[in-house]
């Protein structure tokens, strides 16, 4: 951690100074480090960073301090508009971590190249998060999240699959929300944590090279193994869902592979509900027979679904030990009683507004080192003078 008087604060990374600059692809990584208590300073141009200009905006009124895209991933950070790249360089000599999204040429131009920074601040951890990494034949290619979701393999495996005529009439799909960027950002935070651990044990700073493409390519579960083992390529298609009485959809997974208790639990529930039908026949206890007659299982589940609303159907399945989940839109997640009891969503005051804003909070519960969630996203340049004074008063770096 930083030598000299540490900035007081909670969290396992209290006292760790992080400089973050670049495009939106790395902002979630900075947010994770801020949640762990690091002092994350966002370096912005005078007109504000890119995400401040991305909507949607509060009350649909554009403005650099009203972007919800910016708010979502910049909770807990401070904002600094440096006078020039020389001042940014000066801040880097007093930092523990620099997280940026620049390729080698642009990094050198902004004086953020690793070799130069390392010479003046040998303990500095520089994490460069770029679409394809610092090396390789595609290093200079351009990609936004959608391109990364395509190349990484998620899209090929998401979508509606062939229609009744067998034709692929709908495209592969990517989830909204910039998932490849978020995965790369999360890996950036992981690598920074590891580099800090090593430095605490006497190691130096280092360059972390995060390729969002590689990160995106690593998140498709068993698809690579399926291909390696069988030669088969996973095709896209939705998971089975049940339609409840209120029209809501419930993801209805019945993982027989976990053991006979899975079907036993389901059967007991269906019998209690009076919709088991032929499933009470003992032959259905045999997984081979059941598999061959799976449409009867599905028919019984449809009879069940017709009797209940979505949220109730989800609870019924769970009470039977089945990993069912009602398909919720993001705002419906905020109403979840379990997450509420865990204190997950946090309302932060924005003093310049007439109301607080609710954000998703801690990604896990750590009572001894709680997630830090006290500072609303910064106004543009709000902390320029404050950080300048604080950071110049202490040596920082190592």
């Amino acid at each position, binding site marked *: 951690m930083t030598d000299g008087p540490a900035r007081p604060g909670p969290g396992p990374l209290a006292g760790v100074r992080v400089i973050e600059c670049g495009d939106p692809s790395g902002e979630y990584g900075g947010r994770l480090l801020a949640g762990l208590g690091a002092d994350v300073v966002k370096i912005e141009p005078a007109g504000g960073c890119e995400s401040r200009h991305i909507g949607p905006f509060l009350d649909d009124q554009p403005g650099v301090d009203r972007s919800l895209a910016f708010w979502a991933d910049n909770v807990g950070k401070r904002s600094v508009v440096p006078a020039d790249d020389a001042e940014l360089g000066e801040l880097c000599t007093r930092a523990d971590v620099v997280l940026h999204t620049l390729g080698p040429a642009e990094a050198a131009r902004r004086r953020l190249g690793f070799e130069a920074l390392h010479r003046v601040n040998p303990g500095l951890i520089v994490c460069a998060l770029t679409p394809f990494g610092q090396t390789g034949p595609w290093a200079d290619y351009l990609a936004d999240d959608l391109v990364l979701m395509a190349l990484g393999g998620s899209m090929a495996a998401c979508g509606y699959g062939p229609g009744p005529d067998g034709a692929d009439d709908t*495209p592969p799909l990517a989830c909204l929300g910039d998932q490849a960027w978020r995965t790369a950002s999360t890996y950036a935070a992981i690598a920074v944590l590891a580099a800090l651990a090593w430095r605490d044990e006497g190691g130096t700073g280092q360059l*972390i090279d995060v390729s969002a493409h590689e990160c995106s390519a690593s998140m498709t579960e068993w698809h690579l193994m399926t291909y390696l083992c*069988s030669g088969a390529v996973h095709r896209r298609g939705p998971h089975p869902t049940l339609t409840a009485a209120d029209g809501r959809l419930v993801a209805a997974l019945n993982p027989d592979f976990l053991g006979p208790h899975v079907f036993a639990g389901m059967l007991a529930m269906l019998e209690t509900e009076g919709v088991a039908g032929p499933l009470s026949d003992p032959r259905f206890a045999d997984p081979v027979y059941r598999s061959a007659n799976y449409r009867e299982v599905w028919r019984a589940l449809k009879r069940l679904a017709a009797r209940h609303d979505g949220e109730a159907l989800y609870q019924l399945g769970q009470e039977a030990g089945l990993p069912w989940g009602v398909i919720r839109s993001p*705002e419906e997640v905020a109403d979840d009683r379990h997450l509420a009891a865990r204190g997950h969503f946090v309302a932060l005051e924005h003093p310049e507004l007439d109301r607080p804003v609710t954000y998703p909070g801690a990604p896990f519960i750590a009572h001894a080192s709680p997630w830090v969630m006290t500072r609303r996203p910064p106004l543009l340049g709000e902390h320029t003078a404050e950080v300048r004074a604080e950071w110049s008063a202490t040596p920082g770096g190592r």
Partner: protein
Amino acid sequence: MALGGTRILDFTRLGFGAQATLICGCLGADVIRVESTKRPDPVRVMPPYVPEPGSHGEGFGAATLANATAAPSPNRGGIFYKYNTGGKRSITVDARHPEGLALLKRLVAEVDVVTESFAAGTLERWGLGYDVMAAIKADLVYVSMCGFGHEGPDTRHVTMGPTAQALTGLTFLTGLPDRAPAGWSFSYLDHVGGYLGAVAIMAGLAHRRRTGAGQHIDVSQLEPATALSGAILLDALCNGRPARRPGFPTGNRRSHPPAAPGGAYRALGPDRWVVISCRTEDQWAALVQALGRPAWADDPRFGTLAGRAEHADDLDRHLEAWTATRDRYEVMELLQGAGVPAGAVQDAADRLERDPQLAARGHFTLLGNDEVAPLPLEGLPVRMSATPPRTGGLLDRGPPCLGQDNEQVLGELLGLSADEVATLAADGVLS
């Protein structure tokens, strides 16, 4: 390696928990999987199975489907190989045997971290709850990873990746307008939950370095996902614009910021697609140039980004007529050469056999074990200059065979002799 010297006693199974310790293993932690021969990790014994050595055809993907129908060994479960690189070691200890439990308690004293992904309360029932472990080792970092976590009214609920995806909005956000969600056909949140599990482990270690104190960190599969919908959630909560509304989600079209053209376009070949995404006027101009300045591009409706976004259906039709007759990689190379973001929609075979970037970056590492010939496996997809992560971990080897390291681990950590280990095995303790 970055986490060299850190030892993890790892009770995780399946994907979610194992992803967390895979990351730590690739960073140099000594990860000791505690397993059971009676109740093996389900992914050890489910298809697809890794083929016998020598049964490959031409190329890795050419193993025959016949190979995927037999389960000759708990060491061939294919999905196990996805989540258990990182040089993890495997010991088998029967926690329900009194001597097994005693052995586990002695091991707890020798490690920095305990990880597990059982249903809440399972370790307590064994007599190995956090209180018991903390009494053995006060500064232990204990990270539990299960569907709904260990606190709250619904801790008995169970999840798999798609369950958590449904409950947290991610299934909802994958789909075409005004149709049922398509969702993800795989467990994205097994990965995400595991990433945050790794963050939790390292956060716990960082807190211990600062304060000397251990703790129990409670990771669920839900909370790591709630921030993944980004501004869409805030738009609903702040502006009263729910995501559940007509025309939303928007398929591959993005409006914040808009890209037009932006989407997956049909390419030459069966079910082949290429993504093109232009967010700036420069990129649009470059695209038009690369296409050879077709007349349709002069349509005044396409003169601005806003106009192109408004008339995206027409724009996409024109563009797709061009892509549909061309190879997806050809389109990608041509457009990238011109400064237009574009990428082939790649499947697993493409990533392994056609992606020059992954190959150049050393994304795959050939690793095997006593039963399995080396095959290309993934680890931690991040390069670090001073402490390079290794997919084979400290031991530079592939995922462990079940119980492969009993003698080694028990000798090294507890000083047991080979004879003592053999006796424990004969008594059924190591099962």
